[in-house]
């Protein structure tokens, strides 16, 4: 398990946009940029660490109040701009440690700020923007719900530095009253508990796993390959419905999420009765 370093997001944001600074007026922890992708322009967004950020509990790559409302603003800007024209793709580059755990954050309703970002991404998807999440590093818990999980399609790198999970290992072990060793053993048998991205892929939520030899230092060819995968995912998103049903219709989901599918079919049948 690799530790979160907060480098990957910056590297990939720069690889796609040629930029590494925030937009005017934004906190340093949110990078937004427009750049060409395939035959069109796309908006790229990324949360990065800012050791001098205003909020002490959101200086290491966490998604806090400012990060969430800035993402919401920059996504909504695109929805508004493209209202009467072709909907440009929105790419969330995901490398987020967690949500910010702080008293200030709770007092000022981080739940609402996070919801505002998810609202923006989800509304963009419903409006017809292809929203793609590219998980290049960590995608944890509330941070992923805020930034990325409302995407039409989710792509992820397949190396050990990538982690999608509900809670980091030590905390999850504490809450479920297990040792980290026990948790790791269980995670090997039970796919949704695993911290391995290759097990996550078995849940059917991913569009595709991508391989990059060294995600901290990608070659030009690898960057082009990932761009091509983004273009393909955008085309796929545009060809399908704007909801998230693809996550349940995938081959892997039909196997792993039988219970979800059973709930949906039974509930639909009973909904129509009487």
């Amino acid at each position, binding site marked *: 398990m690799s530790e979160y370093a907060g480098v990957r997001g910056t590297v990939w944001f720069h690889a796609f946009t040629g930029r590494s600074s925030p937009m005017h007026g934004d906190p340093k922890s949110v990078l937004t940029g427009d750049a060409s992708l395939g035959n069109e322009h796309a908006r790229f967004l990324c949360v990065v660490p800012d050791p001098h950020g205003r909020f002490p509990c959101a200086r290491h790559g966490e998604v806090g109040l400012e990060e969430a409302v800035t993402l919401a603003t920059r996504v909504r800007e695109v929805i508004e701009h493209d209202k009467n024209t072709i909907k440009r793709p929105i790419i969330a580059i995901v490398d987020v440690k967690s949500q910010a755990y702080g008293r200030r954050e709770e007092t000022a309703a981080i739940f609402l700020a996070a919801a505002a970002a998810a609202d923006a991404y989800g509304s963009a998807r419903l409006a017809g923007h292809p929203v793609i999440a590219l998980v290049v590093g960590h995608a944890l818990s509330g941070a992923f*719900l805020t930034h990325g999980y409302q995407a039409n399609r989710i792509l992820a790198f397949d190396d050990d530095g990538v982690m999608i999970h509900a809670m980091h290992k030590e905390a999850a072990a504490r809450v479920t009253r297990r040792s980290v060793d026990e948790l790791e053993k269980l995670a090997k048998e039970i796919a949704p508990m695993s911290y391995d991205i290759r097990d996550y892929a078995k849940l059917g939520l991913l569009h595709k796993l991508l391989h990059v030899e060294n995600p901290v230092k990608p070659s030009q060819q690898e960057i082009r390959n990932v761009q091509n995968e983004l273009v393909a995912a955008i085309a796929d998103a545009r060809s399908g419905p704007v909801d998230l049903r693809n996550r349940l219709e995938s081959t892997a989901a039909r196997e792993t999420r039988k219970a979800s599918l059973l709930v*949906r079919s039974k509930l639909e049948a009973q909904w129509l009765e009487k």
Partner: protein
Amino acid sequence: MSNEGYNARFINRQSFIELGARERAKALFDAGTSRELLGPFDRVESPWLAMQGVTPQEDDGCVVMKGKIAGQAAVVVALEGAFQGGSIGEVSGAKMTAALDLACADNEKGIRTSAVILLETGGVRLQEANLGLAVIAELMASILALRKHAPVICLTAGTVGCFGGMSLAAGLASYVVMTREARLGMNGPEVIEQENGVEEFDSSDRALIWAIHGGEQRYATGLADALVDDDTPQVANAIRHFTSKGIPAVHRSSQVALYRNRIAKLDTSQQWDPKEFRALWTTNGSNEENR
């Protein structure tokens, strides 16, 4: 009001908090109109809990009911806080999402159907970890789709409260109804203390917890639309009010400029006194006032 009158009112209260999820859901409908869908006799349980030696429950701690509220079609989904802390697993999450999607489809067919979600939950069920997180994302997507057509009302009565990823679901709701006994927040005090130390949040300081997460504070700062007593008729009345009201002009989670400005103005060099914070965030942001 005389003390005697107050006491009589208190004694005659029909507690909502003391009800289980099934009774809570039922209490919100017009009498005799509700029926439960995918109830315990259908036995759709979590496939993941038994594998870990945890006893599943035949409704997975989630009750779905369909019926009428104030004469109009509605679906109520209630989480049972007494089962695994109301945590969201694959099945309970799928039940919520499917119910909201069916309501959305009915609206698209011209049958106006609103939704009420009763959230008593700590968030993701860690035994189902990544599927729990995934179903919360799916539930959020379904709330966003449904609330274009009809209100989605979040009711958090207590005593579990609404935390973790599910607080984002509450954040997306058209209206939020709380009691003084309810709490709403993303991270509970214990988690904050573990992650950032007791100086950041002393989880044994009950007064501080209520002052930040409690229903009274959330209502006073415009983050909840109604504060009700722990009284079943009063709760049901508030729900009828909001289902009849229709969707807000702008949902709270879409008022980005308002909240971005408020956050930008905060002095982050110190912790804030929750009482003083009320003066900064008045109820102007509430959907009630924005109408």
